[in-house]
């Protein structure tokens, strides 16, 4: 008997299918060119961009200009927001500027470890879902919060493997296992994955996808690292 693995079927988020289960972030790269090379090598179809870094009014913006929206879904994120109010304001601005109504919800009142605020995240998710956004919330690996978010209608949950940028791997393994067991929406392991083997581990645990940024962006050869992550996933 053969079984179909996750790798053989597309990742579906809010009814939209994606051929790759690797999402890639655009921060920390040494140049737009290095970023473009890495995106291409990763095979990703979802690219997340920090709204605080882009100039939505400037069509020449270096980051927006570097992401081919014909090829990738541009997923704006609210990094830098400390409260639900700020995150909602950013998401609305992005939509008003012509971005698709998808948002990676990040609310991190602590600027050092960038850990997500569960209370504000839940509040902002409620508002954004009601306003018709496809919401992908970045959360701590908290199974109850994951269910609460799913219940209000988020399109995924994105628990962290370890603090952002730490490259430490799936340190929250046991809690992510519970999230995966209980979830009816895709579980995307976000943050902390430092090596392709970490990405493979998350996928083996049953995660639907992973999001990687720092490990690729700060690698000596971002393109080669992106290719390696593609294989890991």
């Amino acid at each position: 008997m053969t079984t179909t693995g996750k790798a053989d079927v597309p990742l579906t988020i809010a009814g939209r299918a994606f051929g790759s289960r690797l999402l890639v972030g655009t921060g920390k790269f040494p140049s737009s060119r290095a970023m473009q090379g890495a995106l291409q090598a990763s095979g990703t179809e979802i690219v997340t961009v920090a709204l605080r870094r882009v100039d939505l009014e400037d069509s020449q913006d270096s980051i927006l200009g570097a992401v081919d929206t014909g090829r990738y879904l541009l997923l704006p994120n609210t990094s830098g927001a400390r409260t639900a109010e700020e995150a909602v304001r950013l998401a609305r601005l992005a939509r008003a500027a012509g971005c698709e109504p998808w948002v990676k919800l990040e609310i991190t009142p602590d600027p050092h470890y960038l850990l997500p605020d569960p209370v504000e995240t839940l509040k902002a998710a409620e508002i954004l879902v009601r306003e018709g956004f496809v919401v992908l919330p970045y959360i701590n690996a908290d199974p109850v919060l994951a269910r609460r978010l799913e219940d209000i209608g988020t399109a995924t949950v994105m628990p962290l493997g370890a603090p952002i940028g730490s490259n430490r791997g799936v340190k929250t393994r046991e809690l992510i296992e519970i999230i995966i067991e209980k979830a009816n929406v895709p579980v995307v392991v976000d943050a902390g994955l430092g090596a392709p083997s970490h990405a493979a581990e998350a996928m083996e645990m049953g995660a639907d996808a992973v999001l990687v940024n720092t490990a690729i962006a700060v690698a000596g050869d971002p393109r080669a690292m992106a290719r390696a992550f593609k294989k890991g996933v």
Partner: protein
Amino acid sequence: MSFADVIRTYRGKDVAAEIGHRSRADVERALAAPAPGLDDLLSLLSPAAGAFLEEMAQRAHRLTVQRFGRVMGMFAPLYLSNVCTNRCVYCGFNAAYTSLARVTLTPEKAAREGAALRALGFRSVLLLTGEAPHIVTDRYLKQVLELLRPRFTSIGIEMFPMTVQRYRELIGQGVDSLTVFQETYDEARYGRFHPAGRKGDYRWRLETPERGGAAGFRRVGIGPLLGLSDWRVEGFFVALHASYLLKNYWQSQITVSFPRLCSAAGGFAPPAPVGDRDLVQLICGLRLVLPDVGFTLSTRESPLLRDHLIPLGITVMSAGSRTEPGGYAHASGGGAQFTVADGRSPGAVAEVLRRRGYEPVWKEWDAALAS
């Protein structure tokens, strides 16, 4: 407990002697620690650590890239006024210098300076004044901020210390970061360098960053003025100060600057000069102990040194700076606070960054995030 109370617990302790006694073995132990702490910092700032500079630099580089990426935040200072009531012996704005051309930009002139900076690519600006609340009034600052806010996504201030209430008002008017240098943490020396004016009050100044944290600034910047006192000791106390702020104002990003005294109007000679090698040791030592803190570098330093410091822990830098009010858009500005050593244009600095594998970041904030 305020930081003034924390630093008081060090009275009677000879930090300089402790640093001087640290051995090679102590340095090796500090470098072997997975997350070196303040006690390790004493070793990393010691003369013994001078022999480990290469190793410290490599580790500082790795930590900085890991945490902040291969990017450099770019900002420019905008001097609004050089009128000052203080008599800081090292400063070009010293009230005693009667020959200095004193200028306070009108809000309209400040807006033209802002437009010139915006045209150079800057979206992040630092507004500076001397201590002259009778001229740099609440109403004046409100007018300036109204004109500058649409042009910039981040506005910081480096002015005279204010109250929490006043800081809250400024945050409401669009300011997101506060910079205030203690100049020196040595209270006795502090008194000698600041003989007159409100700035003579050591404690009022020392507690300014915490008032900024309490008011809710997103970023709070601190730093010693290098050259006034033993840099090794100052390095320890600025780290102690940063650690205090990180613990008590956990929602503010803390940054540390490394202004080194250079020639100012009046020709003050630094009593405790800091060499280039010393500066590198200080930056790297602090990076190993404060991996999450932003480090700022100004144009006080030479192009050669700045280029070499890029990978060693610096996360934010200014470029093309003018330190006289009106310096960007007006032919006859006022007198300058200090001489800029790196006179390269922002575009030229950005090019150097790119060549060295760093992306210059002009916008890392959004007005939508302003409270």
